[in-house]
Each structure stands twice: as C-alpha cells, then as structure tokens.
C-alpha cells in the first residue's frame, strides 16, 4: 500500500522536474504578490511589519491555488487517471500520493522562500523562523483541501475561477492559524498553540481529503 503512494510521488515529482518552469512560475507569482503590497500601502516599515504575516500567507494561498488545476488535469486528459481509477488499490491512496507530490513541488518551495519575503517586510528573525515553519506545516493542508476542489472542477469550463470560489473559503482556517503564528512570534508571544492547530489541519487534510477527492474524481470520470 505504501509502495503505491511512493510510486505515485516519485512519478509526479519526476514529471515536475522535467518541466521546472511550472514550479518556478508559482514561486515567482508568490514573490510578485507579496511585493505588490508595499507598492499599494506605502513603504512605512511599521505598517509593513504589521501586514507581513497576512500578506505572505495570502500570497501562499493564491500561489497554491494557481498550481492546483495542474494536479489532475494532465492525467485526466491523457488517460492516466482512468488507469489509476482501475488500479487494484483504493484510488484514495493514489490521490494521497499526488497530494504529497503537489506539496513537495509547490508547498515546500513556498516554505523555503517565505523567509526571504519576510525580510522584505522587516520581520524580526524569530518571526522568520516561525514563518518558514508555519508555511512548511500548513501547506500540506492547502494541497489536501485543494485536491478536492481540483477534482470537483476537473474538465469543467471556467474551472479555474470556480476552483478558487470553492477552495478559498475552505482555506480560511489555515490562513487564520498560519498568519496568527507569525503574528504571535513577531509580537514576542508563544506561537505553539497556532502551530498545533496548523499541524492538526494538515494531518486532518491529508487523512480525509484524499478520500473526498477520490470520490470526486470517480464522479468526473463517469
């Protein structure tokens, strides 16, 4: 069973590495969104420091959203998804593998680059650490919930806009706890409680979301 998940991850990561431009464009989008805010609200360091956790997290949400349609679309159009649906193991396992692969090529790079953006907003060093860690443990939940939305909108016209309409309201909890953790760290408070909730969301997302997404994929394949 675990073997199947690993096979799917290996295949998806290999495919992503063959086309690094897709991964990079998500990252650049993230940086771009975060860089627009100072231009919009002005360069006062005090204001930017207050806004930073929320702005960076909203950027991470949008960047994840941007990479979601690719999660199943290619496999859907080239017939691979049918093969996955007809494999002798539960489709949820394959979706779990695809979710983890999506996190590896989109969530993980976001976590690595988030502290850099934090520097732009003059976040204190301890908050930068927490920011990277929060994005690191929060993005699996984004990939998991996003998988459901991507599966539901598979093959629909206007799927991209619809996808954001479905997925963004469900991302609110991650945003609240993720930005809250960084806020707390920047204010000299203990972010542990936020991080625990974030971890709980990620575990919950990875445990339940693949099964809901698998159900949605079977509906899309009918």
């Amino acid at each position, binding site marked *: 069973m675990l073997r*199947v998940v690993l096979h799917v991850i290996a295949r998806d990561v*290999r495919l992503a590495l063959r086309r690094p431009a897709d991964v990079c464009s998500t990252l650049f989008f993230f940086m771009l969104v975060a860089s627009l805010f100072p231009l919009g609200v002005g360069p006062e360091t005090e204001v930017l420091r207050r806004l930073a956790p929320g702005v960076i997290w909203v950027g991470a949400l949008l960047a994840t959203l941007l990479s979601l349609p690719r999660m199943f679309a290619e496999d859907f159009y080239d017939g*691979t998804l049918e*093969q996955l649906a*007809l*494999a002798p193991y539960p489709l949820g396992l394959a979706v779990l593998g695809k979710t983890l692969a999506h996190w590896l090529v989109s969530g993980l790079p976001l976590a690595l680059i988030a502290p850099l953006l934090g520097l732009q907003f003059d976040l204190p060093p301890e908050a930068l650490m927490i920011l990277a860690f929060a994005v690191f443990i929060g993005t699996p939940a984004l990939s998991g919930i996003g998988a459901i939305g991507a599966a539901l909108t598979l093959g629909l016209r206007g799927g991209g806009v619809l996808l954001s309409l479905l997925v963004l309201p469900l991302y609110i909890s991650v945003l609240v706890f993720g930005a809250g953790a960084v806020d707390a760290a920047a204010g000299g408070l203990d972010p542990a409680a936020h991080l625990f909730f974030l971890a709980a969301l990620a575990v919950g997302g990875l445990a339940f979301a693949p099964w809901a997404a698998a159900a949605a994929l079977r509906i899309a394949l009918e």
Partner: protein
Amino acid sequence: MLSVLNLECLRGERRLFRNIGFALAAGELLFLEGKNGAGKTTLLRMLCGLTPPNAGEIRWQGEAIRRLGGDFYGQLCYLGHQNAIKEDLTPLENLCASTRLADEPIDEGAALAALEQVGLTGREDLPCRYLSQGQKRRVALARLARERRPLWILDEPFVALDAQAVAWLSGVIGAHLARGGLTVMTTHQAVEIPAASTRRLRLGA
C-alpha cells in the same frame, strides 16, 4: 466468467443502448461493433466499472463488479482511447511507471524486452514527445506483452499501428485467449485474431 444483464445507457436525453446482455467464457473474444457514437466506448467503460450503467448489471465470476471493487480491478487490464503516457517521459520510464501504477512493477530488463517486442529498440531513452502517433500507441501497448490479468478490455487498440505492429498485437491477443483469457475490444479495422471462439455484438442496430 463475465456476464452482462440488461444493460442500459442514457447520455443526456439520448438512449445509447438498452437490454444489452451477453456472457463471455474463458478464451472467448468479443468484438463490439457499431457506428461512431453508438456507445462502444461507453459500454467498454461500463464493463470496467468506470461508468455506472443506468440499468442492468455486470458480473465477474457471478459477483457484481460494483461489489468486487479492487478485487475486480486486479483481474482487469483496460487500454482506453488515450495512451496514458507522458510526453516528458521516455518509453522505458512510461512503461515502468504504468506497470508500477497498476501495482505490478516489472524490472528494467523485462521492460526493455517488452519495448523490443513492439519495435521500439533504439528509442527507449527518447522522450515520447518525439515519437510518432503509432510509436506512442506502441508504448502504451507494450504493457500487454507481459500482462497476465484474465480480462482485457481494449478500446481501438489497432489505431495508428502499421502492418507489422498489427500482426504482433493480434498474436499477443491470440496468445492471451489461448491461455484462457477473455478479451472485449472495438476496432474499425479487419483483423485476424486466432481465437477458439470469436463473437460479435453490434450496437445501435
């Protein structure tokens, strides 16, 4: 082994077919025939369990496939219209990946041998993007060289193949039937497949 009872399919407001029923025993080959849009692909997808029928039932060894789930998929090899191969991967990687996703991994030597059988020697390491339609189809078909699952469901497997590849595929399907396997397939080409019992089902008649 495979039995189909009173199958009905509605697509939107159109009824594609109704009261389809047949039983297929070990070693038998069934050709699905009919015009474009008669519902051949839909029927194949129903036999796989991808599309639920609007009425009727499909049974494998007497048990409804709905209830068998993964146990049925372990007995089934489906090759659809699409090749299910990735343009960015080489034929070798594609073949290894597809057998792994089917949870029946083969080693590289076996994969190379299978690719040799379909005449792709020398192109194992070329990204599939650079292959012709027929060659891509062969990459997808290479899986059949070592496939030992009893039920094969093939949607237009001969499309885009040259005479040599058609002969090879006919032989592989014939060998599968001789081993006691079952095959349900569609094709628009006239092909000779050695089979103990060949049956035809015409849709939309």
